[in-house]
């Protein structure tokens, strides 16, 4: 049985791991390589590194740490942040990243997805989507430049349409970040994720809202996502990896030993 994946997310700014609340007020939580090593040793199934400033500053991620991470960890990891061209993606993959994750640049120029898939294969190309539930309109809206609150921008896309668009262009995996839940630890947006899951023919990763172990059980059982991404609960030691995996297993969810 394919295991459900637990994916600690490390937001990176200026070479350090940071965490904000609803994408704001970032505080430093530690250095990249020691944190990555610790999560791998504790049983994380995969890691994601987001350079949260990159897209909004219109520059690519500072890459020197990518190969330092690749040297020491023996689980897969993805790098996200401002990857705007095939050449930038090639550099990051050549340094040992397993996947690249693209968000705002794909919204600006959707053909980028096709170019990356043609060059590196579908398995390398993850699309991150920041989705905001607009309570007034009752619709899920896609946002870009969410790394910088002064530039965060609503796009023309509704989430369900953008999901179909990126799959049609060859995306190998989708990380759906539900912005309303991000950093507040009230649980994943199971309703939205289940709706997207039903329409999504590639692996789907839940992001935003993990606060306690039951939230992981809910999102795997009720939204049937392939992986669950979380940051602060791991950085702050609110959830211990081994306890999380034990409880998921007890709830009947397939988890790697």
């Amino acid at each position, binding site marked *: 049985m394919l295991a459900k994946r637990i994916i600690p997310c490390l937001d990176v700014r200026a070479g350090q791991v940071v965490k904000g609340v609803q994408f704001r007020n970032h505080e430093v939580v530690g250095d990249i390589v020691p944190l990555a090593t610790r999560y791998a040793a504790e049983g994380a199934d995969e890691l994601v590194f987001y350079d949260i400033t990159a897209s909004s500053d219109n520059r690519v991620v500072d890459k020197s740490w990518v190969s330092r991470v690749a040297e020491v960890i023996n689980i897969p990891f993805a790098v996200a942040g401002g990857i705007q061209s095939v050449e930038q993606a090639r550099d990051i993959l050549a340094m040992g990243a397993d996947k690249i994750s693209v968000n705002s640049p794909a919204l600006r120029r959707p053909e980028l997805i096709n170019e990356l898939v043609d060059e590196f294969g579908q398995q390398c190309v993850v699309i991150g989507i920041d989705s905001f539930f607009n309570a007034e309109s009752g619709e899920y809206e896609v946002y870009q430049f969410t790394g910088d609150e002064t530039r965060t921008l609503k796009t023309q896309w509704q989430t369900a349409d953008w999901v179909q668009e990126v799959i049609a262009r060859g995306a190998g995996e989708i990380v759906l970040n539900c912005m309303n839940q991000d950093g507040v630890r009230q649980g994943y947006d199971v309703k939205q994720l289940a709706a997207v899951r039903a329409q999504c023919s590639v692996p*789907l990763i839940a992001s935003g809202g993990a606060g306690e172990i039951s939230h992981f059980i809910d999102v795997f059982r009720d939204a049937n996502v392939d992986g669950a991404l979380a940051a602060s609960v791991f950085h702050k030691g609110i959830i211990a990896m081994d306890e999380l995996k034990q409880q998921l297993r007890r709830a009947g969810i397939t988890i790697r030993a």
Partner: protein
Amino acid sequence: MSLVIVNTRVANLASVDFAFRRLGITPVISADPQVIRNAERVVLPGVGTAAAAMRSLRTLALVDTLQGLSQPVLGVCLGMQMLTEVSAESADGAIECLGVIPGRIERMANARNKPLPHMGWNQTQVSDHPLFAGLHDPWFYYVHSYAAPVSEFSIAQCEYTQAFSGAIARDNFMGVQFHPERSGTDGARVLKNFLELSC
């Protein structure tokens, strides 16, 4: 121990390189037939598509060299698929591969609620092949949409939308569909076993 990672120009070599370094081996990355022939171990990595990878091997004039190797050879992921006879992964018909292990690579079956690519950690039944010495129902990390069916050349078996070969072997040629370089301690054990094989 001299180990060459074949530089197919289309694969991401860094993670395989780093994985062997963690075991105390410094791989040589090369597309030089002489260097490849003289190595004690040869690793054929692979990411991307079979068509692009085989085109690259032909351009580099490495097909005969690889087919003629007698030392232990390990193909990883697409590298494993390239050891078989034919791959269906092409826009215009089948792609002829190296043909050192019998078999044909096909796209995995579709199944409800099981998205492709098959991406993530899957528990794998391994045989008593020395590549899996010391491992019992290991977990390996897979990323692929095409696979080798189960056959007499399977040395490990896994299940997703269908049963498929987690690994195949014939004589000195071995291939693993999973990524041992990204499969934690179980994967590292496979690489260590590969270094310690006697054949």
